[in-house]
């Protein structure tokens, strides 16, 4: 077996494993969300399927699969069918540039724990993440339902308002790191106080807030807002189509959390971890674990916020985006530039 074939096989394997893990994580994030919600509301939550209810995601999946698959009469069939796919695929594409751990060295073979490390890593993330909104817009238009269209409208307005601040917040980090390679950015965050959260606190704050909007989580879940819009863009959806939307949202949540960890919280780095550097396999595994724990912690924060904070009103959302976050993000760039200059 020559080197090219081997690399190809390894890459294919990495893609399969990472996608599989993401899907599994999606399934169990939904479960975690329900259990935590129950815990915060002093309920029990799903606990019947399997031990501690661990098989609940499977049950949910089967339920989605076997429900009737339908298209409303006045819907635009093509857009209606396409929308869930467009919502789901970009969320999965995002994992492509995430570094999950240090290089895994097996014999002479060096395997970076990252599917690809292009020279536009962070930009790729911003570009593809902004694309997910089209699923919502298509669903809103294709359903031909006024609640859906209102949801689609809200999603597009929100995306425009928050994408700008998010990009500008990351610009501060890029200036400091001097690169957009994801692996280099993670590599630079050596030691606890090397994490970019300490160098870019304001940028981190803006990034967190905009990530909430980007993933349509409470307090920015206006596109679906059950109480006002009866579910918003997904009002007309059922069965696996709805399932795809929800999986897309959770996948986006996971990748966005992972990005946040990679950019600001040191990625797979942790103080003391480099003691293991002599045994590469152990080192890689420890890095993976650290990454997973950090991501899970961020997801937990997302869930926590969802069940404690009420939803913003639409005009408040716009005001926050344009009048607070955008100037703050610009200020962040200015201050960063000054610091670099001095």
């Amino acid at each position: 077996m020559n080197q090219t074939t081997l690399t190809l096989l390894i890459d294919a394997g990495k893609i399969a494993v990472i996608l599989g893990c993401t899907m599994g994580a999606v399934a169990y994030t939904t479960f975690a969300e329900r259990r935590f919600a129950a815990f915060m509301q002093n309920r029990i939550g799903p606990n019947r399927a399997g031990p501690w209810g661990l098989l609940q995601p499977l049950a949910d999946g089967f339920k989605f699969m076997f429900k009737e698959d339908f298209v409303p009469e006045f819907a635009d069939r093509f857009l209606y069918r396409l929308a869930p796919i467009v919502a789901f695929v970009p969320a999965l594409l995002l994992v492509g540039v995430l570094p999950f751990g240090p290089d895994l060295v097996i014999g002479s073979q060096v395997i970076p724990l990252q599917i690809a490390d292009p020279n536009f890593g962070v930009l790729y993330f911003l570009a593809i993440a902004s694309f997910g909104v089209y699923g919502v817009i298509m669903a809103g238009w294709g359903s031909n339902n006024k609640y859906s269209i209102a949801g689609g409208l809200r999603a597009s307005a929100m995306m425009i308002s928050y994408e700008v601040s998010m990009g500008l917040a990351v610009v501060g980090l890029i200036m400091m790191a001097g690169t957009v390679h994801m692996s280099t950015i993670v590599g630079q965050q050596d030691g606890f106080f090397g994490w970019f959260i300490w160098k870019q606190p304001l940028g981190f704050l803006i990034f967190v807030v905009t990530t909430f909007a980007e993933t349509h989580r409470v307090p920015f879940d206006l596109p679906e807002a059950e109480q006002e819009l009866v579910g918003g863009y997904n009002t007309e959806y059922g069965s696996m189509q709805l399932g795809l939307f929800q999986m897309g949202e959770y996948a986006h949540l996971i990748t966005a959390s992972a990005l946040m960890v990679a950019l600001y919280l040191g990625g797979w780095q942790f103080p003391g971890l480099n003691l293991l550097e002599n045994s590469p396999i152990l080192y890689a595994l420890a890095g993976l674990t650290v990454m997973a724990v950090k991501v899970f912690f961020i997801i937990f924060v997302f869930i926590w916020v969802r069940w404690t904070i009420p939803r913003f009103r639409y005009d408040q959302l716009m005001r926050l985006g344009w009048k607070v976050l955008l100037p703050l993000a610009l200020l962040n760039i200015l201050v960063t530039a000054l610091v670099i200059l001095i």
Partner: protein
Amino acid sequence: METALFFIMAAIAITAGGMVILNKNPVKSAFSLIVVMLALAILYMQLSATFLSMIQIMVYAGAVMVLFLFVLFILNVGVEGAFSSRMYKRAVAGLVGALMGVVLIAAVLMRGSRMQQLPGMDVAGDFGHIKPVGELLFTKYLLPFELLSILLLVAIIGAMLTTRPKWPKLKLPPELWPGTADEASTETGEEN
């Protein structure tokens, strides 16, 4: 493989481009335009203009088209209203378009070998990455780059001015009212 990818993306871009103008529903045209932008982004990447490619997706496919759709949703442009039924107008437009197409194809074909001999065609190793692009923007193209900020400022002022519902009236003292009384009344009416 690269050539195959080029032709696939080119075919997608052309097909979607055709759908942009042939679709009777403006929303669907906008969606087709997104596909065109994506295909173009991939073509840019093949030309090793990776930064441009990402910006194409982020700004055009991501933000500009979302705004397009937003406006289309709000205006709710109907299928009928968007099209002129006059055949001759379409014929003229088609003719002009075909002419432009012929010129473009001719330009590509006539390019011949001359283009490759021109200087500045060598692509450096990091061509199209963020750093060289930024360096060019702040050296060779510094002036246009800075002037763009004036252009954008003017665009903002203009947009605000044209969309503002109405501006406060000037209260003229009576002796300054132009013309006769009825004219003065029409004048104040005009502002509303």
